[in-house]
Structure formats: C-alpha cells, structure tokens
C-alpha cells in the first residue's frame, strides 16, 4: 500500500473533459452534460469539467453546482445583504430582503440571455494552492491532503504542469482493496 504514488491512481488529464476560458455558460453545460453521459460508459468516470487557460494550464473546475450558481444573484449583492446583520438588522428583515431580491432577480426568467452572455470564468471554482499535489507524492500524503482540506479531488502536477486528477473515489477504492486483502491474509484465507 505504501508503495502507491499519486500517479498510480490518478486519471490522466487527457481523459478528462476540459474547456478553455471564454466558454459560455451554455457551452459549459453541454460539456458537463457530455461528461455526465460518459459517466456510466467509460473506464474513468467523472462528473466535472476542468477549465484551461491559454497555455493549457488548469485554472478552475466546474460542477453542476457551479453552473447553477451562475444563475444566482451577484455575489456582492448577496454579501451586502448578509452584512446587514452586523448593523443590527433583524434576521426577519434580512430574510424578507433576500426573498424580495430573489423575486426581483427571477434567475430562470432570463435563462437564454445568460446562457450566451455568462462566461465560464465568471462562475467556475478557481483552484487553490492546496488542491494541487505532486505526481510522486505517496498515497498517505494524498489522503492527508484530501481529508484536511475536505476535497473531493486533487490536481496532480509534474514539473508545474497539471497531468491528471486524483479523485477521492479512486483513493477510497485503493484503500478498500488493500484493507480487504490484509483482512483475508490475517484470517488465513
């Protein structure tokens, strides 16, 4: 088990769905849907897509939740309402304001316009430093990073470039198989 390294378990980047910066919300959702369809049919199962910059570096991730969040009212307005709490406004007042803003925004009523206007960089998850791991790192280190940072996947790098994705499901499967094997050995089977 200890001999496993990250590169042994990762999904190569080439197997993953990617889109470039500038992709519209509609195009991103098409790519997501395609990834979903292939979820049950390919060796490497994945639900999300990755965002690449002009030099093909991974700079963000996109899931169903991120795509839906693009339809939400602007984050600054939302945080502006949230801040009212520190000024002594009641929770009832803040809830009422949110509801009113929500009704005014009507996110689904303007779906077609948003589909072509919104760009993937407006709503993608920007990858942080703690989401990367070197390809030569041990599985122990990968587990530690996934657990500590509460992540579902790590981006695997070699010489500073992203070469694959290490998913928590694959790590779990490796641990499971190892655990099964040693339990059977202990029972002399």
């Amino acid at each position, binding site marked *: 088990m200890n001999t496993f390294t990250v590169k042994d378990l990762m999904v190569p980047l080439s197997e993953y769905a990617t889109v470039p910066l500038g992709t519209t919300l509609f195009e991103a959702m098409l790519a997501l849907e395609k990834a979903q369809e292939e979820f049950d049919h390919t060796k490497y199962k994945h639900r999300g897509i990755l965002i690449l910059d002009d030099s093909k570096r991974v700079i963000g991730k996109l899931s169903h939740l991120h795509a839906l969040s693009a339809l939400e009212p602007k984050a600054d307005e939302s945080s*502006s309402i949230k801040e*009212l709490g*520190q*000024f*002594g*406004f*009641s929770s009832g*007042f803040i809830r*009422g*304001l949110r509801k*009113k803003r929500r009704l005014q925004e009507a996110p689904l009523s303007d779906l077609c316009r948003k589909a072509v206007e919104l760009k993937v960089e407006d709503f993608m998850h920007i990858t942080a430093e703690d989401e990367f791991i070197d390809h030569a790192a041990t599985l122990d280190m990968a587990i530690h990073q996934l657990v500590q940072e509460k992540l579902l996947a790590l981006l695997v790098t070699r010489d500073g470039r992203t070469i694959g994705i290490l998913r928590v499901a694959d790590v779990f499967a490796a641990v499971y198989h190892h655990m099964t094997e040693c339990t059977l050995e202990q029972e002399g089977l």
Partner: protein
Amino acid sequence: MKALQALFDRIVQRVNINLRELAIDVRPYVDGLVPFEQLTKFYAFYGVTPHHALDLQFRKSSLAGSYFLGKCCATGSILYKTDIRGDELKKEGDIYSYKTFNIAISEDEAIRIQDSLLVKTLVHNFSHDPETLENFFITNTVSLHYANIHGSPTDGSYLGPFATVDLTTMNDCVIGAFSYIQAGEIGHLDIEPGTVWVRNPDQFNFLYRYPQEKLRPYIHFAAGQTPHGVLMDFVEQRKEAFQHVFEKVNLEPVVVPDTSSLDRFAVIKPKTIIRENVLVAQRAYLENAYLGKGANAQENCYIINSRLEGNNVTAHGGKIIEADLEPNVFVGFNSFLYGRPGSRLTIGQDCIIMPHTIIDIQQPLAIPAGHLVWGLVTGQADLATNSIPLEALSEVKDSQCVGDMYFEGDGGRFVKAFRDRIHHILEANGAFYDGSNHKGHAQKNQNISFNTIQPYPEGEFKGLYPTIVIRP
C-alpha cells in the same frame, strides 16, 4: 523633537493594540501625515467667558493650532488644529434621564483626551453614555481630517477623514472615511467608508452605504497617501482665508445683531448678512451668505452664495454652495450641497438632509418641502432612490427600502427623534431667544476672550507643551 516622536510612536502602538482583533495597523495611514515641524508652528488657544467652566489641564501633549473651551484635559496626546468645544458639558447637579433612570451628575463633566492623535477633528456635545456621564473620554484613538467626535466617548478606535461618530460609545472600532455612525454603543466593528448608520435599538435602524466607486472622487484615503478628492480640494482652496484670521490679532470688525454670535476665528467674506439669534462658530466660512433669524453655521461649515431663510441648522462640517434653503431645513454633519451658478439647489421647508449627504448637481434641483434626503444625489432622477416624504416615512411600522437605503422599525419614532433633536439644537444655539428667555450659544458665546499658549520652541521637547493647568 525626540519626545514628540516618542509620543507619536506610543499613541500609534496603543491604537494598534486596541485594533489588533480587526488586524488594522494605523501606522501606514498616519506616518508623515502631520509633519512634526508643523506642530511647532502654531499656537494653541482657549476661550474665557463668564458662561462656561474654565478648567484646562495639558500634560505631555502637543496642541498645535487647537482650541479649547470649558473643562478639558489632554494627556499624552497630539492634537493638531483640533477643536475641543466643551460648551455643552453637563454640570454638577444636573439630572440626566436615560430610559427609566434619572441620574444625578456628581461633578462637572470633563472632556478627557489621553494617548490619542486628533487631526483637524471637532469634539463637541457631551457624553451620552449613562455609565460615564461625568467623563467624556477619548483614549487610544486616532481621528483624521474633519472627523467629528460628537457626544461620543471613544476608546481604541480609528476615524478616517470626514468620519463622524455621534451620540455613540465606541470601543475598538474602525470608522472609514466619510462614514456617519449614530448607534448608541458599538464595539469591534470595521465600518467601510461612506456608511451612514443611525440606530436606536428596539426603535429604528437606518442604513445607507455609498457605492465605493461613486464616493472615491469625493474622498479617498489610502495608506501612505494624504486624503484627497473633491471634499479635500474644496477646503484646501479656502485654507488661506483662515490663515489670515488666525495670524492677525486685530481683524476688521463685522457688525452683527446683539443677539447673534460671530466667532472671531470665522471667515466672513463680503456680501454676507447675519440676522438675529444666529450662531457662527469658529472655522466657519461665509461668503455672500444670508443667514436668517435663528440660523447657524457650526465649525468647518462653508456657506457660499446661499440663503438660509431662518432656523436652519447646518451641523458641523456642512457645506452649502449656490443654494436656497427655506426655513427649518436641517443639513447634517459634513454634508456637501453643491449647486452651481445657474444650477441652484433649492430645499423646501422642514426638509432633513441626512448627515454625510452629497448633492452635486449640474442642473437646477428643487427638493420639495418635508423630505428626508440621503446619500449621493446628482440630479432629479436620484431623488426617487435617495429621498422620501417625511410624512410617508412616519407611516412606516415595519420596514422600508428605497434604493440603497434600508430602514427597519418605527418610521414615526425616527422622524420624531430627528425633529426633537433639531429643536434641541436650535434651542441650544439660542435660535429661540426672545430678549430675556431661551439664551443659547448665540448669546452666551459673544465676547469670548482668547488666550494663547505655546510649545517648547526647540530642544528635546520641541513641539510639546509644558504641563499647564488653567483655572479661574
């Protein structure tokens, strides 16, 4: 000047210790902001009248260009061109009412400033904190250009340029530039620039926040810079006129009615008319201004090419240019009402212009009588999102949002609180004086004698004042 530098460092350190929870370092904001050489150039001065207490104590402090009236004490502090106006402090034996309590004042109230740096700041009114009614303290605090500390005991806080804290006890807070806070009691808050917040817990809560990008042209202050923007330019352009009144001992007399008070440290330009019961405080600037009966111009007010018809309150720092105000208009702290020749601003009777309002117009604008106005107004269209008839606001029982203004609570109480306060201000200023009753500042602040005090001119203590105690 070693002692002055050590004092400055000590104050900054004490403020930073208090603000550590907010991770604020005030040093980059204040380093070099007031060149120490300036602190040796200007005398400090104090007023003597038969109507006010005379009890001043200065220890280990620099007081350049600052003014004191009443019972004040400065220890280990740097006060630069700051006004400490103690003409509304409580007196021994007064009864202060707070909720169900009637609290007897045990000794004359004092303004006590310790370990603080106040730059061009106004300190006025009295402590509204029922726990410290005899002690209006300002400790471990930095306040910058044209800030107002009004009836607000303050500890461990930072006030940016043109910030106002009013009738609020404040601990360990950062108040951004051009923010106005009247909230009773606050602690450990970091308030962003351009916040206008008026709260009376369990009664009402008013909040407006300037969009930062729209406030920036008017006032902007960042670490390592001096405050800049339209507001700073406006006052800087008129600075020379004040140098004249501060440098000259005998000024050309300006005749005002017997019931009015014109401070000798105010600037009066030609074509200015001052009627009865008018109060013009020091550092006020009047040019081609008409102040009708009972009107006033407080510290750092500028009234230019404008008419105030009577009983108009222009609170500290209010600026009125090319405007016509009908009777009983209230203009709040640091408001900037900027009409233009040919594009005058008219404000109807009984309007309340909220503190820290900016009206900057290129076309004529008339604000109807009986309206509350707030925030940034650049033309007629903005009135839809930045004003409300007082009558309509009085009907609000739950909440009301207009534009970027949030209101929760009882609108009637909010309007009444403002009207009561305006009435109190007029009364305190002597606007209702009838020849025998209702004397106020306009009558009591006449014929003030001014004495000057000076710092060490050179040596280790250069810029600091010796210990001075002044009593009758």
